[in-house]
């Protein structure tokens, strides 16, 4: 197990290094960052001022040096200063990441609850109408563009039916799970979690079908154990491993969607910040910082999923 962990840690380290190199090259491939900073100013800017700004952002050093400085500051959780608002990137991200994490968490819970129960249901009722409707919902979830399902959800449930607020977070006061707070989260979480739940549902279904076909299930049935006890205690407990571990990876994949969902529901998360402040203001330190946070979340999720998988299923360790 120790060897496995070390191997995984090394490979994750390499992934992170690769990602930093990639982001760094990306930010340096384009036009000179100074031009982005100065924008399309018509005013004549003196060379001295340009040099001053260049020195302030450390752009007067050589590229490897700049990369080293950037990585070193990343290790100290220092992501430089935002150009647009002259605040540390770290602070901006800290202010907004709770919203993103809550959104992701809510969506994840939705995806797991719905995905697992639908998967079990459609495996148990294989070939019946339950199975078909669950699979159709999953097909829908994998084909629907989130920016559109979000808008449609707002149109239907907020504008026409008026059940939920149409966006923004309102005042989040008191107990976080109280209805006055919770109702702002329900639509975004469902919109974000639906495609993930489709993936989990398909996995649960196939692994459940495999387990239900096995000898010990037949034995349990033969000795007269009740149908639902067989399904829950004997079936699901064994079938749940692959969907649960891949749920972690799936959620990390759907962080991409968090960006879109935040924009549609005007939630002040880091995706929203990245787009509105960083892209429209040409604020590349902020953008690089947010991209790195996204990658960090993805990689740590993947790492946890790997460890969980190895803990549960010893065969993985020796591959």
């Amino acid at each position, binding site marked *: 197990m120790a060897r496995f962990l070390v191997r995984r840690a090394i*490979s994750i380290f*390499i*992934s992170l290094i*690769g*990602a930093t190199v*990639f*982001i760094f090259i*990306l*930010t340096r*491939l*384009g*036009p000179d960052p100074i031009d*982005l900073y100065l924008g399309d100013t018509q005013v004549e800017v003196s060379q001295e001022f340009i040099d001053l700004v260049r020195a302030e952002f450390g752009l007067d050093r050589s590229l490897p040096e700049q990369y080293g400085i950037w990585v070193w500051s990343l290790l100290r959780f220092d992501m430089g200063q935002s150009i647009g608002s002259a605040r540390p990137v770290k602070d901006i991200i800290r202010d907004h990441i709770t919203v993103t994490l809550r959104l992701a968490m809510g969506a994840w819970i939705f995806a797991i609850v719905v995905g697992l129960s639908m998967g079990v249901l459609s495996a148990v009722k294989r070939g019946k109408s339950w199975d078909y409707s669950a699979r159709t919902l999953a*097909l*829908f979830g*994998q*084909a*629907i*563009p*989130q*920016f*559109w*399902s979000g*808008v*449609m959800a*707002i*149109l239907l449930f907020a*504008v026409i039916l008026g059940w939920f607020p149409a966006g923004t977070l309102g005042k989040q006061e008191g107990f976080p799970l109280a209805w006055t707070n919770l109702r702002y989260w329900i639509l975004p979480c469902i919109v974000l979690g639906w495609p993930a739940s489709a993936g989990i549902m*398909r*996995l649960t279904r*196939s692994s459940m079908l495999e387990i239900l076909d096995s000898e010990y299930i037949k034995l349990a049935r033969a000795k007269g154990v009740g149908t639902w006890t067989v399904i829950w205690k004997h079936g699901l407990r064994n079938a749940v491993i692959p969907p649960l571990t891949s749920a972690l990876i799936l959620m990390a994949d759907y*962080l*991409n969607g968090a*960006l*879109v969902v935040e*924009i*549609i529901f005007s939630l002040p998360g880091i*995706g929203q910040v*990245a*787009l509105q402040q*960083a*892209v429209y203001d*040409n604020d*590349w330190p902020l*953008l*690089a910082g*947010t*991209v790195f946070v*996204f*990658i960090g979340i*993805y*990689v740590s999720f*993947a790492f946890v999923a790997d460890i969980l998988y190895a803990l549960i299923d010893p065969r993985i360790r020796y591959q």
Partner: protein
Amino acid sequence: MNTTQIERTQIERDLLGIREDPPVVRELRAAWRFSRRWPTLPMIILGSLIFAGVFAGPLAPHDERAGGIRERHTTPFWFADGSTNHILGTDHAGRDVFSRLLFGARISLVVAAIALTSGFLVGTTMGIISGYSGGWVDEVITRIVDVWQALPFLMVALVMVLLFGQSLKLLLILMASLAWSPFVRVIRSQTLVIKTEPYVDLARVAGCSVPRILIRHILPGVVNTAVVIATLTVGNLILAEAALSFLGAGVPAPTPTWGSMVQEGRNHLTTAWWPTVFPGAAIFAVVMSLNFTGDWLRDRLDPRLRQLMD
């Protein structure tokens, strides 16, 4: 039953209690069986997508970029105050939604096709090379794919657009960069299996060069799989392109795309739903058909893939 059809008169049938379905029901039933065996509806949808994309110019009743504030938010034709002049109504700038849909189909089609072709070529090549050579080459390629898949695509795309400015060329590069990685892993594992086949050893003994072995002996074995992965990836490509357009990072403004139509329409959602609903529904229908066809192709061409990809 089907082999020996006994001719009976109507009276005989009534006496024996044989009820025969009327021809309409029989045909409907046959059509249902046919559509279960062949993906008919998805094929029709995809066919009309290609048709719309290719013939967008002659088909479109109006100029897709020209509007007029007087024609703002005209309702679709089935509304009381709608007219057949604008079948699906107009958007907030008075532009014809139907014509914009047609031209949007063209963009989706072109982007998906080019991205997919390049992704197919690069991904399959890398997969074969990685699987066949093994060792450090394999290690490096798998590592690159790992890093690549850890990158949040939309964010990276936004960075690129910020740095290089919005253009069709950049969009194509971005989409192609998204398209190749799904191929590598599956093709690699497929190659690992084929590599051990006796005919590959024979080819090596006979003195074939490595490129020849790769192209003549390994490639034909993985091509089916690659086709299946391709059909299963197109849907995601179209979704990604739409999301990029939605975020304002796709094809630059005057050209209509389905994603940007949703983006523009959603600010006027309460006054007019049609400029938002139709393009989104189009994406949904097309991606759904693609996924459906992909699943069907996979079960036909390469059933073993089900375990690898689910």
